[in-house]
């Protein structure tokens, strides 16, 4: 599929604030085998010089700062991505130390007693892929999707206690279970086409799921514990991966000044005709 994502984040302040410093992780992953980023455009107002680097997890991070006082910051990311169902062929390779690192606890992923108790029932399943999909199915079937009960900083322990949450929370639970059972797992930040709350696909938030290392045969496989389909397909657009949310927050920033802050986010994912995608340009573009 050829998909277009428009992701706008708006911070508004009652009083002028200053010295905004912001990191943005919105550039879709490129050449992962299942997706290609045809174009990416990032616009910031008030205007700021944009810088970028590739982080330890291979994610493209953009950052900027605004010294002068201002009362709002608007960050608009527009990208066009070509996706397909998993095509890469075995055997898959991954660095052993990276895999080892993705077995341990991290800021939002804890091996708390509730996780340990829940993990026990999956232990007998030998095959990594089958184990992961059973875990995924279990979370999808037993946890209740309910926005507003958790916040962006909820840990897996909190979500276990509540039994409810949103995609970010379910991904953290799945990672805790998998890692505890010896399956390296990583958090994926991205978007889902057609999963929006309105028919036009507007007013969506970004999406999160996880990837589990299922051995050299299957490699990294995407699982989405939030949606019944469970497996990641060409409707999924991946931005990047990390140990958990804290490694790949879409926008993270600080500012100085005494003012309350209002944040509004809008995400719109739409399908383009192949010809339209051509017009947008085939080559990845430097952000302006």
């Amino acid at each position, binding site marked *: 599929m050829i998909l277009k994502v428009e992701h706008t984040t708006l911070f508004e302040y009652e009083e002028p604030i200053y010295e905004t*410093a912001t990191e943005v992780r919105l550039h879709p992953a490129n050449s992962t085998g299942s997706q290609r980023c045809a174009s990416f455009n990032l616009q910031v107002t008030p205007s700021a010089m944009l810088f970028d680097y590739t982080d*330890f997890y291979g994610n493209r991070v953009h*950052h900027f700062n605004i010294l002068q006082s201002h009362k709002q910051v608007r960050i608009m990311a527009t990208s066009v991505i070509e996706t397909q169902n998993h095509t890469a062929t075995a055997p898959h390779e991954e660095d*052993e*130390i990276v895999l080892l690192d993705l077995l341990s606890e991290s800021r939002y992923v804890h091996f708390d007693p509730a996780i340990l108790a829940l993990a026990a029932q999956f232990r007998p399943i030998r095959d990594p892929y089958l184990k992961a999909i059973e875990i995924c199915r279990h979370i999808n079937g037993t946890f209740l999707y309910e926005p507003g009960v958790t916040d962006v900083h909820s840990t897996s322990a909190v979500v276990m206690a509540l039994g409810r949450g949103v995609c970010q929370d379910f991904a953290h639970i799945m990672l805790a279970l998998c890692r505890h059972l010896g399956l390296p797992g990583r958090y994926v930040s991205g978007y889902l086409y057609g999963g929006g709350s309105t028919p036009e696909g507007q007013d969506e938030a970004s999406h999160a799921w996880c990837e589990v290392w299922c051995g050299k045969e299957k490699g990294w496989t995407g699982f989405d514990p939030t949606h019944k389909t469970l497996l990641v397909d060409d409707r999924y657009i991946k931005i990047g991966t990390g140990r958990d949310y804290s490694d790949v927050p879409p926008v993270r920033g600080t500012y100085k000044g005494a003012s309350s802050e209002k944040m509004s986010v809008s995400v719109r994912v739409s399908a383009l005709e192949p010809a339209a995608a051509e017009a947008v340009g085939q080559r990845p573009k430097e952000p302006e």
Partner: protein
Amino acid sequence: MTRLFDLYDAEPARYFDEVIRQDESPRSHYDILIRRFNQFSADDIRTRREVANIFFRNQGITFTVYGVDEGTERIFPFDLIPRIIPGSEWSTIERGLIQRITALNLFLSDIYQSQKILRDKVIPAELVLGSKHFRREFIGVRPPLDIYIHVTGSDIIRDLDGRYLVLEDNLRTPSGVSYMLQNRNAMKRAFPVLFNRYTVRPVENYPQQLLRTLQEISPSPKPDPNVVILTPGVYNSAYFEHSFLAQQMGVELTEGRDLVVNNNKVYTRTTRGLQRVDVIYRRVDDDFLDPLVFRPDSVLGVAGLLNAYRKGNVTLANAIGTGVADDKVIYSFVPKIIKYYLGEEPVLDNVETWLASDPKHLKYILENLDKLVVKAANESGGYGMLVGPQSSAAEREAFAEKIVADPRNYIAQPTISLSRHPSFVTDTEVAPCHIDLRPYVLYGKSVSIVPGGLTRVALKRGSLVVNSSQGGGSKDTWVIDN
């Protein structure tokens, strides 16, 4: 008249005494010192102590005690009897530290680049990955000259046989170097004659050497790079040292709020506008450097600093993530690290160490808690430790639970009886007190060590704790030509 050293009881059979040999005769390099002190009357001592005290007070040399109203400032206790290290012994220490710091730097460079030592399974990868101070985010970010640990201070002790052993490597923000410099100034004032009887190697040019080291790692080719010190602020216990070093080097002493990052470059805010900064000698921990990256609640840091660092627009001394190499668990692997990178045997040995993360070691630790000193891997300053022989059964039981719950975080060492040195325990009375040594190592284009360092002394009789936060003092350290 009783002379000062007449009543000195070194108990050389039980302890290694720096001054008195096993056969109760004085070591030759202390002869002059003992003769001189024996000539002093109680009044002489008092006068000289007063000279030193006035010097310290006038210099405002104080440290802050936590937990007291507004942070009371105290003068760091100073002992009048200097510690003397013969040049031959010093050259061993120097060789050992250069070897050790070189190897530790190679280790840091390796684990933040290709991680060969982990792939070769010399150190279990999970120990590095699990270290609180391992900054995986900075893998692949290469600092200028590939140097991570520019300013360090390893703690060295002597065992019963007088062997110098490394107890701890302080690779983050070791403090105390200002005391080394001021102790020397005080001694020169209080004992000018005695000082001249020895050929004491100078320490006075440390600030210049430090500045040169910091300039050498500047990312900018300009001849006079702008170096600043970053301090957590006036309430930090080492604030005096930060302002002292700034004065001595002639650089700005900045707090986080004095710095600002604009377009990926770091500046100080001055009355003449923004001034570009090239090198930051930071006395702020990693966690607090950049609220954008590590600790959102940090008021000490500068938002965007680490991206400027990542880009190579500013150098931080020390680099990010050096704490992984002074983690007490990694410490136990330093002899292997030296062998792995340099192919040499260590010149200075480690103190024997058991790792709670190793099941066999864990069993030994739990069975011998009453004989061991157990330390948390990532704490310093004498916090988070259990001194077995001085603990109650209940304390040991509580500590055992902590160890079992988090074995990666604990190590154990035998209770080592630090060497002892005559020190004033009252105004006029000299008794043996336990000491250690912290030499200061600089690493720019090459490794250099100021001859001497800070000798810390536990001025409470029998106490083993030399930390300034817990009632220790210090003495001047003289490295002499043989």
